[in-house]
C-alpha cells in the first residue's frame, strides 16, 4: 500500500460464518481518506455482510477491523457510528411520516449534547444547539439540492429523492467514512448522474472516505479510485478500475465465461 495514503479503514483477514454458512473467508481490504472505494460482486457475494462487520452490526469470528487507526473489532454499532462511520441502506431506512428536515435532524443525533431535561425546556444552550444543528442540516439540504422538499414528509417523495434524503441523513452525521449500499439501485439515468455528482463533489470538498457498493458497472468504473471484487466471500481482485475491468477472474465471475470484459466490451483475450 502507498504509505502516503491516510488509511481510514483496515480490514485484516476477516472471516464470518452463520452456523455452517461461510459468508466471508479471510477477507482483507483498506480504504483511504479522500478516495472512493467500490465494493462489487455478484448477488450473495458478501458485500453487505462485510459492510455490516465494519459498522459493528455483525461481529466476525476471526480477523481484525480497525477504523481511523483504532481497533474496532467487536464494538457495538452505536459506538462505531460515534467514531464517524455513516451508511445508507440498500432498502431505504427513513421515517416516512417525518419531513426531510426532521429525518436529517435525526442524523445529527451524535452531535447533540443536551439531555432530555434541558432539551425539554429548550432554553439557553439547548436552543443554541438546535440552531447550530439546523444550520448544519440546511447546508446539506442546499448541497443535495433539496430546498423544495424541505418540509415534505419523506413517504410522499418519489424513490429517487428518498435515496437522496437517505444520503443526506448519513451526511448529517458528518462521517469520516461513508458507506453507500447500492445508492443508485432502481434509479433512472438522470438520478444516477445526480447521485454520482454528489458523491464526487463530496470527495472533492472533504477528506471523507467513501465505500460504494454498486451494481452499475458504468458508474463504478467512472467514479471509483479503487475497486474490490468479492465472489463467494473472497476477494478475487483489488485495484484501480482500469486494472479490475480486464481481470480474467472478474470477467469469469460476472459473465461466467472469459469472452468479454465487465463493461461488455470484447477484450479479445
Amino acid at each position, binding site marked *: 500500500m502507498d504509505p502516503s495514503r491516510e488509511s481510514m479503514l483496515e480490514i485484516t483477514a476477516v472471516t464470518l460464518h452463520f452456523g455452517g454458512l461461510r459468508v466471508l473467508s479471510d477477507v482483507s481490504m483498506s480504504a483511504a481518506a479522500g478516495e472512493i472505494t467500490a465494493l462489487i460482486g455478484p448477488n450473495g457475494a458478501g458485500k453487505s455482510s462485510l459492510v455490516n462487520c465494519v459498522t459493528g452490526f455483525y461481529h466476525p469470528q476471526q480477523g481484525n477491523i480497525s477504523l481511523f487507526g483504532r481497533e474496532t473489532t467487536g464494538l457495538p454499532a452505536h459506538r462505531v457510528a460515534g467514531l464517524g462511520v455513516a451508511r445508507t441502506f440498500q432498502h431505504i431506512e427513513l421515517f416516512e411520516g417525518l419531513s426531510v428536515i426532521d429525518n436529517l435532524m435525526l442524523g445529527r443525533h451524535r452531535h447533540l449534547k443536551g439531555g432530555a431535561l434541558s432539551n425539554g425546556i429548550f432554553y439557553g444552550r439547548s436552543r443554541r444547539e438546535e440552531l447550530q444543528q439546523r444550520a448544519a442540516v440546511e447546508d446539506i439540504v442546499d448541497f443535495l439540492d433539496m430546498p423544495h422538499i424541505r418540509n415534505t414528509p419523506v413517504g410522499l417523495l418519489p424513490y429517487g429523492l428518498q435515496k437522496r434524503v437517505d444520503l443526506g441523513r448519513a451526511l448529517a452525521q458528518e462521517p469520516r467514512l461513508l458507506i453507500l449500499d447500492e445508492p443508485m439501485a432502481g434509479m433512472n439515468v438522470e438520478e444516477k448522474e445526480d447521485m454520482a455528482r454528489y458523491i464526487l463533489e463530496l470527495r*472533492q470538498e472533504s477528506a471523507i472516505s467513501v465505500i460504494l457498493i454498486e451494481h452499475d458497472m458504468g458508474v463504478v468504473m467512472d467514479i471509483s479510485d479503487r475497486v474490490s471484487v468479492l465472489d463467494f466471500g473472497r476477494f478475487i481482485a483489488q485495484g484501480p478500475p482500469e486494472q479490475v475491468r480486464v481481470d480474467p477472474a472478474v470477467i469469469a465471475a460476472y459473465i461466467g465465461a472469459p469472452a468479454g470484459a465487465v463493461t461488455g466490451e470484447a477484450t479479445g483475450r
Partner: protein
Amino acid sequence: MTETVIYPKQTMPQLLLQRLVDTPDAVALRVKDRGIWKPMTWREYGERIEHFALGMLELGLEPGENVAIIGDNWPQHLITDLAVQSLQGAGVVLYPESSPEEVAFIVGHAECPVVVVRDQEQADKLFEMQHELPGLRRIIYCDGRGMSLYDSKVAISFDEVLAMGARRAEANPHEYRESVERGKNSDIAILMYTSGTTGEPKGAMMTHLNVIAGVKNFFLAEPMKPEYERLVFLPLAWAGERYFSTAGHIMEGYRLNFAEGPETLRNDIREIGPHQLLGSPRMWEDYLSWIEVRIGEATWLKRSIYHWGMKVGQRRAEREYRGHKAGGWTRIQLAVAEFLVFRPLRDHLGLLRAERIYSGGAALGIDVMKYFHSLGIPLKQVYGQTEVGITTTHWDKMKPETMGRPVPGVEIVITENREIAHRSASVFVGYYKNQAATDEAFIGDVLRSGDEGYLDDDGHLVVVDRSKNVATLTSNERFSPTFIENKVKFSSYVREAVCFGDARDFPVLLINIDGEVVGKWAENQRIPYTTYTDLSQRPEVIELIREETARVNSEMPTFMRVPRLAILHKELDADDAEMTRTRKVRRAQVEQNYAFIIDGLYSDRTEVDVDAEVTYRDGRKARINTQLTLVDVPVESVQGVRT
C-alpha cells in the same frame, strides 16, 4: 397628445446615493437562504455596491467597460449591475439557461472583460468557450461550490472582490462617490440582448434616462408604495423585471424578495405574499392548470363548491367589465364564494395581498385573464418591448381583450401598415454596434414594434399579432394565429400550440400536450403509457384534444375554425431553437422543423412518420421513431375538408 412628464436628471447610482440618505435602515431586499429569509438594509446594499465597484477596479476593470452577469436571480446580480453603472459601464444580464455558444456570443459582442456568475454551472460555460473570448480576464463567482478546480488567476469569489473593494474604500473614501458623480443620465446603463424570435441577439442600449423614464411613466399609472413586497420572479435578463428591480426599487424604496430557487418559487410566493408580481403568460397558464388538476383530484363536494364559486366569480367579472354593480342577492352569493372559494385559492397561490399583478412578454389568453379576475385577482396585461420598456396596462379599467391604455409619457402611433410604434423618453438609443438594425427599428423618431394593432374607442391598445405572423387565408380573410393558439392553450391539457394558415385554405394547429396534466388524466382513466411521445399519440388523448379543439372552434368565427391538427411527439424546446429563452415560440423555426407534418395536415393523409434525432443538453443523442396521427376536428361549414 401625451402629458409631459418631468424625469429625474440623475443616474441610477446617483439616485441610490439619495436613497441611502433617505432610508438607510429600511430593508431593501430579502433573500431566502438555507430556509430563512435574510434581510439586507439599504445601507448594507449600498455598501456592497460601493465595495464591489472598487473591487472590480482593483481587478483591473477600466471605467466604462461592460460587465456581464449570468445565473438565477440573486442580489449579487443587482449589486453588480449598479456597481458597473457607478463606473459608467453597462451591465449585461444573460438568461441563466443560455447555451455556452449564446454566452460566448454576447460576452464577446459586449466586450466584457469581467463576468459575474452565480455558480459553477454558469462558470463552466465560460471556461468551455474561453478560447473564443480573448478579452475575458476575470470570472467572479457568487457560490464557491466546486470552483476550487478552476484556474485561480481567472476565477475569483464575489466576497473576495468585496473585501478588496472594502480595503480600497478605506484607503480612499471618496473615490466611489466621485466616480458616481461623474455619471450622466445619457450614459448607457444597461445592454439588453433581445432573445429575438429571429436571428442573432441584438444588444439594446438603454441610457439611465431611458430606464428611469420607463419606470416613472409606468408608476404614474400604477403607483407603488414603499411598504410593498415585490418578488423578483422572472429572469433579470427580462427588461420589465430588471427595471422594477433596479430603477423602480431605488426610486420607490419597496422591498425585493429573492426566492431560494426555481423549484421553491411557488412555496416562496406564499411565504412572501407579494403585492407586486410580474409573471409570464406561461406562468399564469401553469397556475391555472395547477389549480384545475388539484380540483380534479378533490372530493365531489369540494369540486361542486369550486365550480359554483367560479360561476359566481365569472358573472362578477363580466359585470365589472361592463361597469355594472352587483345586486343584493348576488352580493350575498359573492360573499359566500369569497369565503369558500376565492380567498382560499388566492391564499394557496400566495396572492392574498396581490395588488399589482401583471402578465407580460407575450399575449395572455382572454380566458386565462378572466379566470383570475373571477378569483378576485386583479391580473393586468402589460405591453411593451425591450427597446422601450412597459408602455400600456389596464390602469383605467379592465378590458381583457386589450393590452390596456398607454401610460403617461408614452405616445402610441399606429403606422399606415397597422404597425404599433412608440414615442417616449424611454425609447432606446440604438443597438450596440449594429447601426443597420438601429436604422430599421425607427421610422423617423418613432420606434417600430413589429406588432400589428390598433387603439380602440377607450384608447386601449389592441394587439392583433406580430406583423409577420398575421396570416391571410386563400379566402382573403386575415386572422391572428396567436389568438387561436391562446384560445386552445386555455385548455389545461394543452401546454403549447402553434397555428399556421398563411396562404392556405384553413388554419391548422401543432399541439404540445401538458405531460403532467394529461399524464394525471391518463392515470385516472387507467390509460397505460410509457413516454411523453407514447402518451401524446394514445387514441384517448387524441380524442381528448380533439374535443378541446372542437369546443374552441364553436366559439370562433367560421373562417378561424381549425379542421386539422397534429399532436407533436416532443415538447418545443429552446435548445432546439424552437423557442426563445423567454419561452416564446419561434414560429419560423417550428414551421421549418415540422414542415412535413404541416404539409401532411394539408393533404389527405391520416398519418405521418417521424424519425427525429433529439440532442440532450449533455450531448447525448436519442432517436424518436414514431407515427403521428393527423387529427380531424369537427367544424361546420368549412369546405373541402372531411369532418
